[in-house]
């Protein structure tokens, strides 16, 4: 028994995905399908009132029915398409297409565990390939299962064609021909249907298709006849191994092996997105944060176990507290470093909870962690100096995280140097994770610089023809002329070190534009 013969693939090709995916909002797809068609926007299925085309690299890759009626063809340039139909031009968004395919896979997961995505570069078409041979019994046969899948997908706003065949690429290519599924199909029938397909469908291999066309091949059937008459090796020589592999996949031809079943290509198990959510319901209304603590700890321990089992870590978690009247409150906890242990998250959560008093009597406490990342993705800086400067920011992650939880992210920062002539622009405020520039050019390195810089320069009064800022000032060293930033807000200043009556050295400047004196810093 050759098991690969018993495989059955259903290809679902979303032909208008480039256009329809543009209106994908990213909301949960189950919500979308529940509400079914009413959510669909006007530009779907090509039945809008105006012609629309989707372009990529300045070429039309998809035209809706109105645009096609006006004569727009995929592959045209924008100008021609616009001249022909006066259409609306939309750029392609491949990430959105992938998110739609992801959402659709989630939906198809109820029918089969083997789901693959397929995207054709040349035709700008993508779709899903489902292996359904193992699910037939559960759903009552080919016809019933396909009917269910099609009904389910018909509720989504995406137009699609389907094809059924014995191999994944064969199913994909058969989706271009419109055959109804009646449940009695056999491999022989699939091959017969495939034979009728034009070779233009193999557009992802333009060179091979061109070569075949020149030698007089027009349909896949011509190729099949040739393979049967001679052998596959002649194709391999002329058109390359990759293309031959595709042909073998389409017709399920064993190339080398006597015992094909041993070397069967494995099917990919689809893995749906997982997230962590757990909740605790209290037997009595909770009014104090202290009473929540054991529950918080227990939920975080559950999260920790969940993450450890999956070799994952997370950076942010969400607490949802609710009372019996369905009032809800959301508390988000974020840590700079990804965590897989609960202790730091516990401390950070407590700070967040203590910062705001409970708004109501809490009945349920829920912990949700939607974003988790694999442990392997953690990267470490290759830093040979680390051993020397032993204690740095990384060692105080917990302390810093606690401070941030208390004061907010913006309240904890570090400084860096930014290249400029204007002093206040050179002082860069950076997040702790960023690397700061400490390369000071000679012009700044050799000049007098105060330790404190006033955020905005303070105007100096002139009393009795002397400079006065909380005391009389005497300029001692200077001037140092600073000119710069002429392209934005021109700056021209003469900086001096001045001494105040009480011997405090201050950094003052004379603004050459508005002829005023200012204090800009203090030497301390």
């Amino acid at each position: 028994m050759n098991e690969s013969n018993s495989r059955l693939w259903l290809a679902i090709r979303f032909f208008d995905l480039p256009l329809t995916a543009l209106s994908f909002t990213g909301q949960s797809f189950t919500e979308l399908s529940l509400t079914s068609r009413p959510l669909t926007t006007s530009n779907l299925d090509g039945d809008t009132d105006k012609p629309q085309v989707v372009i990529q690299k300045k070429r039309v890759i998809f035209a809706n029915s109105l645009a096609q009626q006006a004569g727009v063809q995929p592959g045209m340039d924008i100008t021609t398409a616009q001249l022909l139909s006066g259409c609306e031009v939309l750029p392609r968004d491949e990430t959105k297409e992938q998110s739609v395919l992801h959402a659709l896979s989630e939906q198809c997961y109820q029918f089969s565990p083997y789901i693959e995505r397929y995207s054709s570069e040349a035709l700008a078409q993508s779709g899903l390939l489902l292996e359904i041979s193992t699910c037939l019994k559960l759903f009552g046969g080919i016809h019933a299962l396909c009917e269910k899948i099609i009904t389910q997908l018909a509720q989504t706003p995406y137009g699609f064609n389907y094809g059924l065949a014995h191999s994944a690429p064969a199913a994909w290519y058969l989706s271009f021909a419109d055959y109804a599924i009646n449940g009695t199909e056999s491999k022989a029938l699939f091959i017969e249907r495939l034979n009728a397909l034009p070779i233009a469908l193999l557009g992802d291999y333009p060179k091979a298709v061109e070569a075949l066309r020149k030698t007089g091949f027009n349909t896949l059937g011509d190729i099949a006849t040739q393979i049967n008459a001679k052998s596959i090796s002649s194709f391999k020589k002329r058109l390359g191994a990759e293309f031959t592999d595709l042909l073998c996949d389409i017709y399920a031809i064993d190339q080398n092996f006597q015992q094909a079943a041993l070397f069967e290509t494995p099917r990919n198990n689809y893995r749906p997105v997982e997230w962590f959510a757990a909740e605790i319901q209290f037997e009595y209304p909770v009014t104090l944060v202290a009473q929540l603590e054991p529950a918080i700890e227990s939920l975080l321990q559950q999260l920790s176990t969940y993450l450890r089992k999956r070799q994952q870590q997370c950076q942010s978690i969400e607490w949802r507290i609710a009372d019996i009247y369905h009032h809800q409150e959301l508390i988000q906890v974020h840590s700079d470093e990804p965590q897989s242990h609960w202790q730091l998250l516990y401390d950070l959560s407590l700070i967040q909870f203590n910062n705001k008093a409970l708004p109501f009597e809490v009945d349920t406490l829920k912990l949700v962690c939607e974003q988790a990342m694999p442990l392997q993705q953690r990267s470490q800086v290759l830093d040979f100096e680390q051993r020397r400067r032993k204690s740095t920011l990384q060692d105080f992650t917990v302390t810093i995280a606690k401070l941030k939880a208390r004061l907010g992210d913006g309240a904890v920062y570090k400084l860096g140097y930014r290249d400029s002539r204007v002093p206040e622009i050179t002082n860069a405020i950076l997040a702790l994770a960023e690397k700061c520039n400490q390369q000071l050019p000679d012009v700044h390195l050799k000049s007098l610089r105060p330790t404190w810089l006033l955020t905005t320069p303070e105007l100096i009064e002139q009393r009795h023809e002397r400079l006065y800022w909380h005391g009389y000032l005497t300029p001692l060293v200077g001037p140092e002329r600073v000119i710069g930033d002429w392209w934005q807000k021109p700056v021209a200043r003469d900086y001096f070190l001045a001494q105040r009556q009480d011997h405090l050295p201050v950094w003052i400047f004379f603004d050459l534009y508005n002829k005023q004196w200012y204090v800009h810093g203090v030497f301390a």
Partner: protein
Amino acid sequence: MNEISPETPSTASLEQLLLRDDMWMGHSQRFTTRAAVETGYEQLNASLLNRGWPLGSLVEVCQQGMQGEWQLFTPALLALPGLVVLVNPPAAPFSQAFIQAGIDLERLVVVAAAGKKHFISCFIELCRASVGAVLAWQPQETMSYTELRKCQLAAAEGTGLSVVFRPVAMQQQSSPATLRLYARLASSGLEITVFKQKGHLQTQQAKPIVLPLPAQWKAATPHAALMQKSAGAKTDSKPQPLASVIPLRGKT
């Protein structure tokens, strides 16, 4: 019950009290920390116990606004490992000056903790974590003895340098800090008066220690002198020809 003399429990409790770590018996240095970091100034080292800034204890500096605090602490900060955390600094630290001074900016962290409640909790958190050095400027509200004591206890739990800057008026109030200083800029330099030091009994009025200020801060030549010098120079030197003139020779 009445037979027990009232003295017995009171003497016992006094002894117990004296055994406590946080009790200070004048000159006794039994309970003071030994760990210290060099101040970078010989005169100052000499007047401090253990010849340096005490680590793991609260240092209080009373001063009017900004008075040479970086001059005072930069040598110690360069010697200490770990982070330098500024809590509530009175202005923005100027990165160029710190690069000039040789302080690694990666080590310098600024924490803006508005309000006394947040200030104290941040200070405690940082001191306990022994981040390296914590330089904190007291917020607008005055801090009570109890609050300062919380800070002192947190500092004692850590091993870093913990400094709190307070206004001059606070000098008159009692404080649990291990070391209390008064800093003031004078014409001769930075005057530091140590007016309290745990484990050191002051018998007479403390004399201020004068620390030198960087030479660049002083005017090289006063303006008036500059004028005189240039005037003198003019009279002394002979006017020189600006450039030698070579007559062009035309073709004959």
